[in-house]
């Protein structure tokens, strides 16, 4: 028992009314001043904020370099696109996120913008549509422009598929290993292990591929988006190792656990072809 001191009565729980994220796009200047706006747009070096004064409204311009941050609300598409990707619907995901990427494009240099995470989702969508070249180019752009190291790492991983295609396995592994060493974000780590598995699979190094893919269900089981590719990859690697039972198990786990994923469809086809 831990009652060293009597705490009688009960605590009044203060129900604080949480303020929902502002729909307005406040401009926080480096001077500390905050300008409440009803919307912003970019024109050259200036960020124009729509402000309301009394009954009338107008635009006020600020040099981008004087802005500490713009408080953009988080675009809901970040979640909806991720969900579409997890369902294996890259085409729909691309359509969903495209407008967000476009909107934030002019604000890429202003802190608070959502371009990089949105663009990263676009990269995943392009990758899912096998448009690897475009995915790589955008990934490269994100890497160069983002200040968030985790986003940069996630962007770096987009290069792996192209390197595998060019059979530059050494470089591809270097990228995966660097991300695995440096990242602290679970979803980035999960993706890095999947990509590492892909590199080994392409080299037909089955045992190394199995070990890489299995990192995902073992250590990152909450990163649902990466479980289906990890299971499919591990099934193929087990097949390479001629462990057909384990290959079937991975494919069955995939079809049962993630029936709507794009990989599940492939898994079902591969199961059909497995020796009975």
């Amino acid at each position, binding site marked *: 028992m831990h*009652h060293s001191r009597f*705490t009688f009565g*009960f605590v009044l729980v203060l129900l*604080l009314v949480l303020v929902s994220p502002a729909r307005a796009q406040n401009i926080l200047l480096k001077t500390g001043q905050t300008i409440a706006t009803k919307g912003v747009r970019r024109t050259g070096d200036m960020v124009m904020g729509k402000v309301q004064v009394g009954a009338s409204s107008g635009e006020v311009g600020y040099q981008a370099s004087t802005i500490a941050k713009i408080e953009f609300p988080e675009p809901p598409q970040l979640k909806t696109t991720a969900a579409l990707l997890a369902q294996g619907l890259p085409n729909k995901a691309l359509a969903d996120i495209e407008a967000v990427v476009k909107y934030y494009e002019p604000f890429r240099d202003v802190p608070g913008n959502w371009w990089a995470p949105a663009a990263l989702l676009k990269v995943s969508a392009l990758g899912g549509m096998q448009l690897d070249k475009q995915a790589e180019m955008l990934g490269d752009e994100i890497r160069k422009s983002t200040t968030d190291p985790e986003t940069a790492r996630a962007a770096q991983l987009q290069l792996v598929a192209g390197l595998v295609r060019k059979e530059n396995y050494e470089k591809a592994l270097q990228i995966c290993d660097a991300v695995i060493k440096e990242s602290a974000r679970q979803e980035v780590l999960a993706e890095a292990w999947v990509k590492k598995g892909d590199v080994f699979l392409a080299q*037909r190094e089955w045992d190394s591929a*199995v*070990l890489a893919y*299995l990192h995902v269900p*073992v250590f990152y089981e909450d990163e649902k988006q990466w479980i289906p590719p990890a299971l499919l990859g591990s099934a193929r690697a087990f097949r390479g190792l001629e462990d057909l039972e384990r290959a079937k198990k991975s494919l069955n786990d995939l079809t049962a656990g993630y029936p709507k994923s794009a990989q599940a469809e492939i898994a079902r086809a591969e199961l059909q072809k497995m020796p009975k």
Partner: protein
Amino acid sequence: MSRLVRQAALFCGLLFFLGDVGSAPGEEAPPDLATAHAQAMAEFQAGNFAKAATDLEAIVARVEVTPQVEPIFYTIGSAYFNAGDYPKAIAAFKIYQAKFPKGPRAAGVAFAIAQSNLLSKNFKEAAGQMAALENDPALREQALLFEAEAFKATNKIDDAMRALEKLAGQDLQTNDAMRGATMLAQFYAQKGDGAKALATLEKIHQKIALADNIIELNALTVDLGDKFYNKQQFKEALAAYRYAYPREQIIQLQNNRIARMQRRIEENLAAVRANPSEIVRLAPVNNQIKEGIANAQKLLAEFEKLPSITPAIYLRLGRCFYELDRKWEAVVVNQEILDRFKEGPEREPALFGLILALADVNQPKRALERCEQYLREFKSGPNAPTVGYLLGAVALQAGDPQGAENYFNRILEAQPKSTFREQIRYLLGNAKFMAGNYPEAVAAYKNYLKEFPKGASAEDVNYRIALSALFAGKYQDAMNQLQDYVAKHPSGSFLPDAKYRLAVCKYAASLYDEVIADCQAWEKQFPGNPQLGEVLALLGDAYAASDRENAAIPVYIRSYQTATTDEVMNYSLFAASKLLQKAGDWDKVSELFSGFVKDKPDHPTVVSALFWIGKAKAHDGKIDEAKQLAAETIKKYIDDPKRDAVEQLITQLAQFCVKKKRPAEDAPAAVAAPEPDPGAELDRLLASPANEESGTAKARILFAKAELARLQRRPDEEEKYIAQIAADFKPEELSPLLLGEAGDYLVAKGKFDQAAGFYQRLQDDFPKSHMIDYAYNGLGEIAFQKKDYAKALRYFADGTEKIAAAQKLKDISLGQAKTYFALGKLDEAQKAFEQVASVREWRGEATAFSVYSLGQIAAKRGKWAEANAYYQRVYVGYQKFLPWVAKAYIASGQSFEKLNKVQEAANTYRELLRNEKLAGFSEAAEARSRLAALGQGS
């Protein structure tokens, strides 16, 4: 500051309204009530609770009992409670209840009495009193929690669980509900109800922010896992361990919690700024939060000083995976511990666990490396003897008897008292036995018997000594030893094998009658023994070897029927067939294979059997029947790409179709029926509505046409059909042979990427196919053409070493040789080309290429005369292969030039130009140009 102190402070103002009942005359006047109360409350706030209680009791003795003094009665009870004097607290609270039965703190008082009983270990009373408070919404949660604790203390676990299920059965919303859920999960685990324990644990982790002490919760989670593990509920244990947070996450969660508390302080301060009157209420709240922050920070600081909990959690995960037969996952986890945690007590068990798991998933190379690592890092570790033993055992598993022998010898020396010494001695003999080093195996086995004459493997060792003599070809010794074994072990586990081997020795000594008698006796002695198929095969061999072929055939047939391995089955089946063919009894051949098809309709050999049936029928002149049978069989399996003998049947059918019928001897030439068009006949025979939908079937029909064209010597047409297969069908529609053929066609056309798709499919989906050579050769050739020589060499080397290529061995050998040459590895290239050139069966273009390349190697070394000799061998000995002849002439001329033999060089160029067959080659122009350069142009 406790809530009690806060509330006591609030009571101060009320006392100004109290009337003093006065002091007795003659007594020293006590301080006025307000002062006395203030002093008592000061004692309370200073933590002098006992003094505060007696002072307040003195005050209440002086005042009339009115609602205004109600708080003082309450505070007296609280003061005794805080002083730890629970009997007095109970008494004081009961006074309160008597005087203010409906007082504003009546419920709190009832709760306080219950809690005092709990703390006084009056559990029965406490439980009953807490149960009575369950219906008070304000006290319900705490009452249920304490009720459960009271029941727990009296070991009434079921009652405790009922209370906790009321508290934490729904969504967790409060800290008390979280505490209740944590306790409940432990009870479930204790009761072995894994599903409920895990469901509760899941609820807890969904609301982890409610946990007061994440570190403690984590420890409880691990403990829960341990409980499951100890009960061998590995699945549940794994799930529990997965809920445990690694160190970094705990630190992050605790920091988040501290940050949340800090935010609450800031929010309270903001509320006070907006409404200063709130300070009276919120200041104590903030003080309490600050206390919480200090506690949380202290816990965190202590936690951060401790070694990381992560490897301990991972170790447990690894063990669960291992026990659940998810050995690959166990490898992943243990490897992660070793990679991420360079120090700590978990390294040793993790490394050991990794070795075991690697050995289990058949990764001997990795296991060996880890064994070596273990013995380096933990020479005297608790598992060192086991690892020493495993080192050799794993090498044996990897098929490296020499390595195993070295390891075993090393461990016998390094760990002379190893608990595994007996097994090591035994396996050391086995390693030599496996390596075919029989004399040394015998010596090693004798060492075993010397050291462990009554060891667990003594009988096995004795038997293996006898086998060593047999396998070393010392049949007489073997016979003596086997007879000795049989005599010594009349019920030995190797008795059937020993008697069979004795018969084998006699067969080697050509004592066929004895073999026959022994085999017959064996069958009587060991009816139903799984080795019967082998014994009957030997019996058949003995009959056949002693010219009793008629007796041999039925025995072989029985042998294949009883065989337990495909090897024995195929041997006996085809041995019988061979004897029947020798006797010209094609009817019986047909009958034999028909019987096989009937016996084993699903066996992969069925298609081959049907091939032989067809052949037998054709041999007997029953061509139409043979065609029909072949066609029916093909149609049955034509849409299954895995039946790779279908192509063999297609070739057979094509052969039947091109075969001209022998006219009947008595038929006049004029009335002989016209021969049907083979193509039309093939189409008719293979036509089937079922085949119209299947890509595999369509591709095979094209292959049948290609085969027909090949047999009719129409190469253009043959190529046209193969091209059609390569262009119109997806790799997944094709059988192994067709994948190989399509790939080869595409490589020849320079369509490497498309070809790679076919070869990859072959490699991935048919790794055991006889046609797998195509993939290794094709992929190697593609890599070679793309100048990725390292990759090319890998494919070619795997082709010779890993898959033991047969179909494409010549091409793969050539590929390896030319890749060595391209890499500048001249010694290796020379050896490889010499090998190709020396194989009589490969004589032809491969030889011309190899001899020319040997010239190239000599030229690279500046040995021009030697090079020239090779080139001359090509244009003299292999004239049929014009491209190589042309190249060889030019290279020979250049060699003469290097040797300053200008005239000989010119003669060589002229010889090339005189050969009309070489006129169209680019080398002809080159020869002219060289002649001009030498001043000998026309």
